């Protein structure tokens, strides 16, 4: 059971809060990635606040579902989701990337509760998820395994080794989510190194494929529930998203992949998200 079981309206509100957290902590740290965290926010909110069987009060709960973030650089999103879910205090978000903070630039599972495995080098998460899914099947357990990936990391060869493995061993307890925002550091994914047609690739490798609007909460929930019921094949949800979603001057621009907003830009972004830096940082400080 998911401990929150939020409805669509609550999930949209949580995704908005997550976006506010992301901008606020990036303004505070003045270091980190903006674009990917914002594009992942809706799918991550749906997973952690409606689907995932997890227990923030006991991160090592042996019956929990597992979600692996293969994209370590969306750490502002990861930390916001975990703090919002109650794994650690919201105020910790204001220590992001600072010395002695447990919230490092890329997540370290030995420091931060709720992180299943450390990440930062792309193309590794799906193999890890495959191993966990295989081990869970060996035990005859019902736990589900999820893996959050980016579109750019589909360029890594190791991803396709894992794609083959999951299909070969029929890991139907595995559901991958791809944040297909069509942007990576060097520009448009189509121009840097085209990964299209992505759905057809997964399909031809033997996966069950869903293509959705990664910002439409109804479609996200529908696909996640369909994945959990599908048997015989691993599933992938390709969520078409917009980099920087929710902040007009970041949307669709690759230049926002790896940089934080300056304080004035952050204020502008937070205004679009219906708050101010002062108000939201106060909320975090008291959380």
């Amino acid at each position: 059971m998911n401990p929150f079981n939020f409805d669509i309206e609550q999930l949209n509100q949580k995704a908005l809060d997550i976006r506010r957290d992301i901008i606020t902590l990036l303004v505070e740290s003045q270091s980190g990635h903006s674009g990917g965290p914002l594009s992942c926010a809706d799918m991550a909110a749906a997973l952690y606040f409606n689907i995932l069987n997890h227990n923030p009060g006991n991160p090592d709960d042996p019956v929990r579902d597992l979600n692996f973030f293969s994209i370590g650089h969306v750490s502002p999103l990861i930390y916001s989701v975990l703090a919002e879910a109650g794994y650690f205090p919201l105020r910790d978000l204001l220590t992001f990337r600072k010395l002695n903070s447990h919230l490092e630039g890329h997540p370290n599972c030995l420091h931060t509760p709720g992180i299943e495995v450390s990440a930062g080098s792309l193309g590794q998460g799906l193999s890890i998820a495959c191993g966990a899914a295989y081990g869970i099947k060996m035990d005859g357990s019902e736990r589900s395994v999820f893996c959050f990936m980016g579109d750019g990391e589909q360029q890594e060869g190791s991803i396709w080794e894992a794609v083959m493995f999951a299909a070969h061993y029929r890991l139907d307890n595995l559901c991958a989510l791809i944040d297909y925002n069509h942007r990576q550091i060097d520009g448009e994914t189509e121009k840097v190194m085209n990964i299209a047609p992505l759905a057809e690739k997964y399909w031809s490798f033997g996966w069950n494929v869903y293509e959705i609007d990664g910002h439409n909460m109804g479609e996200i929930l529908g696909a996640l529930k369909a994945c959990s019921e599908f048997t015989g094949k691993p599933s992938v949800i390709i969520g078409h998203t917009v980099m920087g979603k929710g902040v007009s001057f970041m949307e669709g621009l690759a230049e926002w992949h790896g940089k934080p907003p300056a304080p004035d830009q952050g204020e502008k972004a937070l205004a679009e998200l219906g708050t101010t830096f002062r108000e939201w940082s106060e909320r975090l400080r008291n959380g």
Partner: protein
Amino acid sequence: MVELKKTRVGFGHGLVDAGRKSEKVVVLVGDLRDSTNVNFFAEEFPQRFIEVGIAEQNMANVAAGLSLVGKIPFFTTYGAFATCRCLDMLRVTICYSNLNVKIGGAHGGISVGPDGATHQALEEISILRSLPNMKVIVPCDYYETRKATLASIDIKGPVYIRFGRENVPVVTGEKTPFEFGKGALYRDGGDVAILACGVMLYEALAAADELQRDGIDARIINIHTVKPIDEDIIIKAASECGAIVTAEEHQVYGGFGSAVAEVIVKNSPVPMEFVGIQDSFGRSGQPEELMQTYHLKAVDIIKAAMKVLGRK
């Protein structure tokens, strides 16, 4: 006549021992089932054996994932691939997260023979020593490899076990104790200390016999655990013998000898010589020919001992 046995068979039998001891033990292989001798485990525990195909990077992280749901996975391939090809997985996922993954590194050393340089792993110790949380064991013979493999399931975190392809002399016995992290004295002597890992222990013992005929008492120490290394036994050897020779079937740069040197220069600096591969790739040839060509025989250890004694 000295008994000969393959260390890789020791690994294979050690996996069966481990599988019998713990149901958590799972073995993965990358299309090298028979040549890494995981076939014994596969036959006895087919449900706990995972063929991953020729995809070593995936194999390393599938093992990582298995460890995260409570399994004790061993992933196995040739050492050249287990380290170099999987290095990013070893670094970022397995070592940084300190996961309970065991690595069977087959075909360690030049004695792999005719397959040539691509398959002769000569760099694993140097590479793995630089990764935090990684432990490295280089057993000397069949029995020690078997015992190290079984022992590794009780050592928390990543452990690499290096073994070779060919028949090599049996130096230890079924009952010889194996203690992880501890060097073992195989012959006492006070003139020079020869520290060896892996199959070079046998060569060191042969060298000691020869040296004794010339009136030189060599102390022989087996250091199967290269990381974490037994500092006490090294410091004691340096201070009591005043001269050290290291012997490894591996690159001297960053390898076992370097690990010993790091201990010595910090604690008890004495003259030292390094027997090992001198910064070159291997080549095809019969194992014995290669051991001679690359100066990894008892005679080479004797030369190194004489040289270091001259510097004392």
